[in-house]
């Protein structure tokens, strides 16, 4: 009996000390190998098609796991504010090889790929590749054409390709009539804030993902501020033409009847009027995508 209890105590002590030691050792191993070592191994050893074959028919489950890996990888890189997203496209490609019907991967994954670093991977061509694969696999899903047109218009500045994407999408049964209107707008206007706002509004409405919706709202706010700044600068210029001098502050324009009141940005802060008539927001960090339409 006594012998047994001694053995139990020794076993408990061993369990705790050795267990803790193993966890610490593993932590060191991960540090030495680098956080992405495991991800790279699972990614490059088997291709998506090979993985599908060895999944014993459970490829859709494996696709869910790979999509989760891709989201976690994107999240980790995003929080590090690193401009490198080397594994993102291969992860998305493997995921869609495993389950070609997994629509969120094409929609959200392409936005992750297309946005400029550090918000995204800055790979709009890869985003287009992913979306075209999605359209080949799901030709009846018109929303993928929307995302394709969106990527061509905003990230690749290829307005002709954007027009074609919206036009093709609008022909699919069930597509919103708005798609046809968007195709016409693409042909008329490039770098137009109103069009860009409408596109981001579409992204906001089509996704359930909080980070993408948050990004869409920030883009919309930035675009509105861009448009407001352009408008304010035109009025300042008009004041200069009329009076021959730059306004000292906004009240000069108000007194002249060029503005109804002191202009404020979406956060409620007044716009800053700088010497020589240029206009800017008080806190540029609140609008991280200012000026992107002109880049």
């Amino acid at each position: 009996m006594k012998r047994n209890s001694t053995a139990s105590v020794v076993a408990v002590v061993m369990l705790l000390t050795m267990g803790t030691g193993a966890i610490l050792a593993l932590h060191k191993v991960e540090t030495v190998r680098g956080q992405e070592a495991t991800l790279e191994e699972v990614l490059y050893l088997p291709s998506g098609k090979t993985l599908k074959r060895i999944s014993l028919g459970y490829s859709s489950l494996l696709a869910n796991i790979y999509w989760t890996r891709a989201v976690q990888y994107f999240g980790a890189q995003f929080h590090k504010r690193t401009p490198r997203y080397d594994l993102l496209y291969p992860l998305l490609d493997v995921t869609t090889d495993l389950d070609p019907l997994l629509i969120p991967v094409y929609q959200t994954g392409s936005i992750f790929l297309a946005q400029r670093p550090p918000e995204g991977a800055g790979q709009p061509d890869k985003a287009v590749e992913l979306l075209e694969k999605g359209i080949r696999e799901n030709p009846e899903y018109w929303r993928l054409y929307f995302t394709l047109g969106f990527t061509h218009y905003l990230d690749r500045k290829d307005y002709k390709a954007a027009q074609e994407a919206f036009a093709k999408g609008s022909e699919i049964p069930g597509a919103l009539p708005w798609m046809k209107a968007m195709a016409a707008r693409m042909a008329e206007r490039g770098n137009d804030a109103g069009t860009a706002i409408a596109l981001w509004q579409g992204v906001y409405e089509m996704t359930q993902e909080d980070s993408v919706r948050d990004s869409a709202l920030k883009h919309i706010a930035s675009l509105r501020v861009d448009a407001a700044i352009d408008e304010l600068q035109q009025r300042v210029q008009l004041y200069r033409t009329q009076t021959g001098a730059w306004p000292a502050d906004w009240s000069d324009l108000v007194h002249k009847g060029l503005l109804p009141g002191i202009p404020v940005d979406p956060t409620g802060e007044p716009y800053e009027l700088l010497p020589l008539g240029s206009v800017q927001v008080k806190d540029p960090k609140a609008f991280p995508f200012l000026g992107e339409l002109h880049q």
Partner: protein
Amino acid sequence: MISRLSAIALNTFREAVRDRVLYNLIVFALLLVAGAPLLGQISIDIERLVLVNVGLSAISLFGVVIAIFIGIGLVSKEIEKKTLYTILARPVRRWEFIVGKSSGLLMTLAANTALMTAGFYAALLIDQRHLGRADAGLLIAVYFSALQFLMMTAITLLFSTFSTSIFSAVFAFSLFVIGTFSEDLRNFAALAHGITKWFSTGAAYIVPNFASLNVIAQVGHEQPIGGRLIFFNTLYAVLYSAAVTAGAVLIFERRNLK
């Protein structure tokens, strides 16, 4: 005859449900299903799909594992424990023993599938707060998994009639893996020539076709499964299992048990 068959089947069922392996597997599968919503939370836009894929894959895979682990001992254990001689000393025919054992294992698998399906739907209900029409469609995948178990039971029993437990498990699992590649085998046969074509075509028809019984991806994406596929899959699984069970009876009838 019916009473003898039902007696063997019920005893097999009772013996199986007393097996700890069964409970361990069921608990593990249910834990997996319960953990699925957590996996869905860290992904994007696929919460339901993750739950569906994990749940249906767990039902299918654990059912196959249970069929193998319990099936391999059905005949060999009776021989090792010498209990088979007691049974066969009574007016029980060898084929009745095999068919009874098979029925008992199928009853076990049916109970296990019902339990895991109930757990899966409970998880769906908790996750979605309601069950819709699309959720009812998931039962087709569960039904196809049950057909898979029917075939695996027959296969495991076949190996169990002439091999040891370990080898039966290895053979049965290997055939399960080959069965998931059966459509590749058929594609290979279509491209081959001469004797290779004949051999591979024959092999493609002899090995079980599990690929057509796995519709988890389709039901997960709410794609319709045709009535004809359900009918012909059922017909195929029943006929294949009957043929394999007949093979098991043939071997067991000729086996020297002395």
